[in-house]
């Protein structure tokens, strides 16, 4: 029971990170139908910015908003300068450009923050220690039904719940949220009711990247370090989460992320023999495959209604 609760909370905090990155993926996908392959690397860049702020003596409480702001500006800029013009050519071109962006950002992070290249270095061979948003000293535990749960896990989970609440308000109570929903549903008609679709798309990318930045900082905090390969696996888990929840459903992305986090930790924990730590990433592959084959629109996604 204790072990179960521990794994559950570990899974939830891990899953919270997937939720955050998946949220970014979904917010962008809803607007334009593009899958942003650079989402993880954009988040990583912001995480490094936050790290750099720490090096300059700026406290994390201020560095985090700075990182998210950098993310917002980067996301918005990428949409305006790269994605919008290339989207006129083809979906495929957008895919390649996000992949190029992935490659570029990964290099840029290394160029700025990698200390010295190690011989035969794979990814993430150099890493910097990173502070956690929540207390994570060895004795920072609370006792829940006899299980020692890390305060950090609870904090991260709570953070995601609060953020989800805020996003819910954004989507359901504000004009920007309504505009984003309208653009997601029918971009042509959105223009015809006077919505500035270009602005909405720019904002979507900005918000997505800012949320991603938060995800990156949280994840680096959980791992206590930031390195060049940090977001590789997170991205695929987040994609699995978005696929599971439905690529056009923000709520689904959050829930999907949490579910994946829990499945991953339970699978690795209870089936150490067969899955263990190494093959955890296989969970993502299996989830993506099963969802796509059984219910391609995901748990909460809408299969688009087309009426003539």
């Amino acid at each position: 029971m204790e072990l179960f609760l521990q794994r559950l909370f570990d899974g939830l905090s891990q899953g919270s990170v997937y939720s955050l990155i998946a949220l970014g993926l979904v917010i962008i996908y809803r607007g334009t139908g593009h899958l942003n392959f650079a989402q993880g690397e954009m988040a990583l860049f912001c995480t490094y910015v936050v790290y750099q702020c720490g090096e300059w003596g700026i406290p994390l409480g201020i560095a985090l908003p700075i990182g998210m702001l950098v993310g917002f500006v980067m996301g918005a800029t990428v949409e305006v300068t790269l994605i919008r013009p290339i989207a006129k050519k083809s979906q495929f071109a957008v895919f390649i450009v996000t992949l190029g962006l992935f490659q570029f950002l990964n290099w840029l992070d290394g160029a700025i923050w990698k200390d010295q290249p190690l011989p035969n270095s794979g990814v993430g061979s150099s890493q910097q220690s990173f502070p956690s948003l929540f207390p994570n000293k060895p004795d920072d535990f609370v006792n829940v039904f006899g299980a020692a749960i890390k305060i950090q896990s609870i904090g991260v989970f709570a953070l995601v719940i609060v953020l989800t609440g805020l996003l819910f308000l954004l989507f359901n109570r504000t004009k920007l949220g309504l505009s984003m929903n309208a653009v997601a549903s029918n971009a042509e008609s959105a223009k015809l009711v006077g919505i500035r679709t270009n602005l909405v798309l720019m904002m979507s990318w900005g918000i997505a990247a800012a949320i991603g930045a938060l995800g990156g900082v949280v994840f680096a905090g959980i791992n206590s370090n930031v390195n060049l390969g940090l977001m590789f696996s997170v991205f695929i888990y987040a994609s699995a989460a978005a696929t599971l929840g439905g690529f056009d459903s923000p709520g689904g992305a959050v829930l999907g992320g949490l579910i994946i986090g829990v499945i991953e930790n339970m699978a690795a924990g209870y089936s150490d023999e067969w899955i263990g730590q190494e093959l955890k990433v296989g969970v993502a592959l299996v989830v993506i495959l099963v969802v796509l084959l059984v219910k391609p629109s995901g748990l909460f996604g809408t299969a688009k209604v087309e009426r003539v």
Partner: protein
Amino acid sequence: MKTIATIKSGGTASWAIRLVTAAVVVYLMFWIPTSASNGMIDSCITALTLMAAAMSLNLLLGYTGLISIGHSAFFGIGAYTTGILVSRYGWSPFQTLAVAFVIAFVVGALVSLPALRIKGVYLALVTLALGLVFPQLVKAQKLEWLTGGARGLDKTGFRFTKDNPTYEIFGWNPWGSLRGENVKPFHYWIAMIIVIGVYLVCRGVVKSRAGRSMIAIRDNETAAAVMGVNLAITKALVFGLSAALCALPGSLSAIRTGNVTPDSTNITVQGAITFLIVMVVGGAGSLWGPIIGAGLFVFITELTGDWSDPDQIPGIIRPLFSWSNTPPGSGIFAILLIVLMFVAPFGIVGMWRRLVARFVTVTPRPAGTGTIESVVSAPAEA
């Protein structure tokens, strides 16, 4: 634009151009192993490896419109098949190529089964996950007896010793003793033969009836199905073939380096992304695209390889890159990729064709006298 020349396809001028091109290519092919420095031969082998991998991916993405960001897994299958058979079971490296080919074909065809239902970016996700799983799989403790776990395998190439100093082809020995550095030209020729083989297979497939089915699927899947293309079988075969061809450079890398580790770049997802990027930069959907893209990639990487030391950067551009802690090769190439997508979506080959078309008119042969050159058109929507 003024046309400065008109060339009749199949005419004398056309043949002369082909002959000169072929002569230059063949000359270089022989010049490199005999006269170039060992370092350069090494770079060339790296480039050849990448060329074969990118060509295999081109068959899938460039011609059939199926996206894969997991081809590193097939590269890995090749490397590990060769590695395991050579180091654990004492096979001769050449024999393992066929086994690697078959295994990768089967795995590729199996992977394609979901691809029959999944389209575009979702397929990209599935293959990406595959690419991430593969290195973890070979690292798994359960498989350590076979794959060597995180350490990988060694002694996976030819071992030339005092007793066995060379490799003879039916008693013919063109290279002399292969111990030490002499082995490079030998590896070069293996790489070259693999590249030529992969090229010929791709060319044969693309220009055949099957190739037209693939292009039809890429351009309009529904229309292709209506015209009688069997989507399921075509996709499965192309996926299998593409995977099998990608396993060959994988085997080559095991033979060449003499070891296989799960962290070597081409086996990780970074490798799959590299294959994809060089293919698109060179020109997706053209036979020479991946070759040119891979060559350029290795050239840029080698050129900038020591630029993390600012003193090595040529003077004029030093301020541009002197801040970088890592060699800027992959960054430069990423920028090149993005820029090319804006100005020349069909890569360098596409740009070249457009340039040639401005100045030279190629008049096709009269209908019915030969095969029609495949028309380059937009890759299918992702």
